[in-house]
Every structure is written in structure tokens, then in C-alpha cells.
């Protein structure tokens, strides 16, 4: 195995490491999620500059001895700084939740280029959008889709035959992976009830591109119902509540 690895990556998290270094978690295009040590990165005149900041996409050169467990950052060159995410608290909070998804819900060192591109595009859209909460909801639904847990919103996810009644409340079950028809709703206890407006918005946010989701007007009821559905899916498929979501609520309230 070669000791040098060249790849693009986006910094998810940084921690202090020893006196003047940083330990980074980076989602890379070639190597998936990895931990890497950046020596001297906490010094004010560090040679890394701001290339190792959270949400920054950089070109990295890592060094790793075949026997060692940790990558060491040897060079980093900024591709996209995403500065727009630092200076608005709602964008910072939403970008943090996105980073937390990649940090918590991916397997270490598992390459997944589609996920990398999706994450990078999501950060770009979040930086530009005027509706960060919509982009975040859309990100979470699209993330579930990339992970193979996309919500089935047309035919009943239990029997596959029935559908939802237009203009009426319906139930969504995480266990079955989507909407339930009238008959199946009666049998299934563990599901979330949502109104017709929320169902329509849910499918819009899941399927349409980010640019369009910015135009969607979501009232508090629908947005609350959608959050509940997503929360239910995350709980069911990942069984782990993201700390960043709680902090986000605190920041944007």
C-alpha cells in the first residue's frame, strides 16, 4: 500500500489534539469518512491556513504508514470555502446537521462517491438559498434515499396495492418505509399522521431539486409533521438521535 493518498474531502469535525494540532474527521471522495491528524494546525500562522475549517472542501494529500491507524495531513488546498455558512446562524446550524449525518450515519473508510457529490452539492445550495430550513428537510429526505431508505409516498408501503385518499390525512410508517392505505392503517399502530398539505410537501422535498425547494411555502403545522416523519425514520433506521439537531433548535428559536 502506498503511503501517500490524494483526494478531495470536506471537513466534518475538528477537535484539539495535543498542544497545537487538530484531529479532523473528513468525508473524502476516494476514502470515505476518515480521521486525520493535522500537526501544528492550531497555531495562528499555521501553514494550513483555513483549509481545514469545518464545511471547507479541499484537495488533500495524506500520509499514512501501512502500519499506522491514522492519516496525517501533509498538504491541503482549498477548493470551496463555503464562507456563507459561517456568518448566518441558521445556515451554520443546518450545515452542522448535514455534517453530523455524514459523521454519524456513514461507515468509516467506506468509499461512496455519490454520497460525496450529494453532500458537496447540498452545502453549496445551503450557502445560496434563502430558505435553509427547506433545504435541510430536503437534504434529510434525499440522504435517506441515497442510503436506501427513501420514503414510498404513492402506493401503500405495506400491501403495495391501496393508496392514499386525496385531501385526507394519512399515516406514514417507518417500519414499512412509506404511506399506508386505509386498510393497513387500521392494522398498524406505530405510524405518524400527516395532513394532505404535508404529504404533498414531503414528496416535493424528496423528489425536486434544491433550487425548487427554496420556493416552497411551508406552514408550521406541515413543517412540524414533516419533521416528525423524518425523526421517526431516523429513529427506526439509525436508532440514534443527532446531538446537532437539538443544538439547531436552540440556535434558531
Amino acid at each position: 500500500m502506498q503511503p501517500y493518498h490524494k483526494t478531495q474531502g470536506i471537513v466534518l469535525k475538528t477537535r484539539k489534539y495535543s498542544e497545537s494540532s487538530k484531529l479532523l474527521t473528513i468525508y473524502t471522495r476516494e476514502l470515505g469518512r476518515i480521521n486525520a491528524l493535522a500537526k501544528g494546525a492550531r497555531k495562528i500562522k499555521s501553514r494550513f491556513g483555513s483549509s481545514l475549517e469545518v464545511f471547507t472542501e479541499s484537495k488533500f494529500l495524506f500520509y499514512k504508514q501501512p502500519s499506522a491507524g491514522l492519516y496525517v495531513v501533509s498538504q491541503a488546498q482549498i477548493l470551496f470555502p463555503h464562507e456563507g455558512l459561517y456568518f448566518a446562524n441558521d445556515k451554520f446550524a443546518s450545515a452542522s446537521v448535514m455534517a453530523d449525518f455524514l459523521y454519524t450515519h456513514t461507515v468509516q473508510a467506506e468509499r461512496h462517491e455519490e454520497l460525496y457529490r450529494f453532500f458537496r452539492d447540498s452545502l453549496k445550495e445551503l450557502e445560496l438559498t434563502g430558505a435553509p430550513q427547506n433545504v435541510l428537510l430536503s437534504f434529510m429526505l434525499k440522504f435517506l434515499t441515497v442510503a436506501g431508505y427513501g420514503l414510498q409516498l404513492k402506493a401503500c408501503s405495506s400491501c403495495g396495492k391501496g393508496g392514499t385518499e386525496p385531501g385526507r390525512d394519512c399515516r406514514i410508517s417507518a417500519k414499512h418505509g412509506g404511506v399506508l392505505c386505509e386498510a393497513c392503517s387500521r392494522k398498524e399502530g406505530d405510524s405518524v399522521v400527516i395532513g394532505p398539505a404535508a404529504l404533498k410537501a414531503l414528496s416535493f422535498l424528496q423528489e425536486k431539486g434544491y433550487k425548487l425547494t427554496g420556493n416552497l411555502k411551508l406552514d408550521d403545522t406541515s413543517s412540524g409533521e414533516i419533521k416528525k416523519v423524518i425523526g421517526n425514520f431516523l429513529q427506526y433506521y439509525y436508532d440514534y438521535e443527532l446531538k446537532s439537531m437539538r443544538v439547531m433548535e436552540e440556535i434558531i428559536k
Partner: protein
Amino acid sequence: MESYNNASLIKLINELEKMPGIGPKTAQRLAFYLLKSEKADVEKLAGSILEAKEKIKYCSVCFNMTEIDPCAICTSLRRDRSLICVVEEPMDIVALDNTGAFKGLFHVIMGSISPLDGIGPEDLKIRELLIRIGKENIKEVIIATNPDVAGEATAIYLSKLIKPLGVKVSRLAQGMPMGGSLEYADEVTLARAIEGRREL
């Protein structure tokens, strides 16, 4: 490691290695230095570590480290009491105070907003800061959180809360590159950053 079949020595090296900036080599060197030292000197060192640990607390006003509560900065009559500088850690007070360019008061918020670690505004000493601003006659708050993403986000969060109180809010000047830690800035860089602070 046969050369080390000595449990107490290994224990000492392990404890030293836990400290920031101390790698295995340095820990080894320190351990051998201590063992070669006079017993009285080693007792003095151990005693002073324990004494400091017992006597030094956080100031109940500004959360600086201090033996006397409130701390010397909070009770000083020679400081400008209309100016508060907000920092992340008690260590940052030392760095800024050494510049001599800042003569106001301090407030340590004990970290920065860090969503992935589950650290939000309510986990920091922000409420205490707002109470101080409401109670004391503060005219300007200088936010000196670290020049990194978390520090910037925290600065913006703070300015949104403080500005409506009718207080001027400023941020340390540029020249502090993104990515660094305040405690590592030299005195000249820090003094310039204080003088050239920008209003938020």
C-alpha cells in the same frame, strides 16, 4: 518492555503523557528527570499541583480562574468597567491581558457553539453574560472568540442577543487568520487585533 519492569515508573510516564503537548518521549524524559531530582524538590512540585488544584476556582462573575472570588480583574479599580471582552477559555484572558492593549473586564463563556458535540448556547456562560450586561454599566462588548468557524458562529449568535440591549458590539480585527487559536497568537498580533476591532 523489559527495560521498564517497574510498575511505578510506567504509571508515572503514563500520567505525564496525558498532559497536552507531552508525547511518549517527553514523558519519559520528564519521568527520569523527576527520579533524579532531590526528594524535597519532587515534594514541592507535587504539593504545588495539589495546592493549586484545591485553591483555584472559577470566578463567579467572569469565570476566570482565581484563588479569590471575584477575581482580581473583576475587583480592580484601575480597569475600564464599561468594556467587556468575551473569550472562550480562561487561557485567552492571559494572552489578551499580556498585550497591555486592553484595559476592560473579561467574560469567559467556556467554549464555543459546537453542534456535533451537542454544545449549544445553553451549555455556555451566555445567560450569565447577558445578566452582567443588563446589571453593569457596559457600553461595549468585544467578542474575542477564536477565529474559526465555531468562534465566528458564536460571535454572530452573541451579537444578535447583545445588540438589542443597546450596547456596541465589536469583533477582533482581521489579521487573525481563520483556523488558529487565540492562545497561540503573539502579543503584537493580538494588540493590533484589539485596536482594529470592527463593529458587528
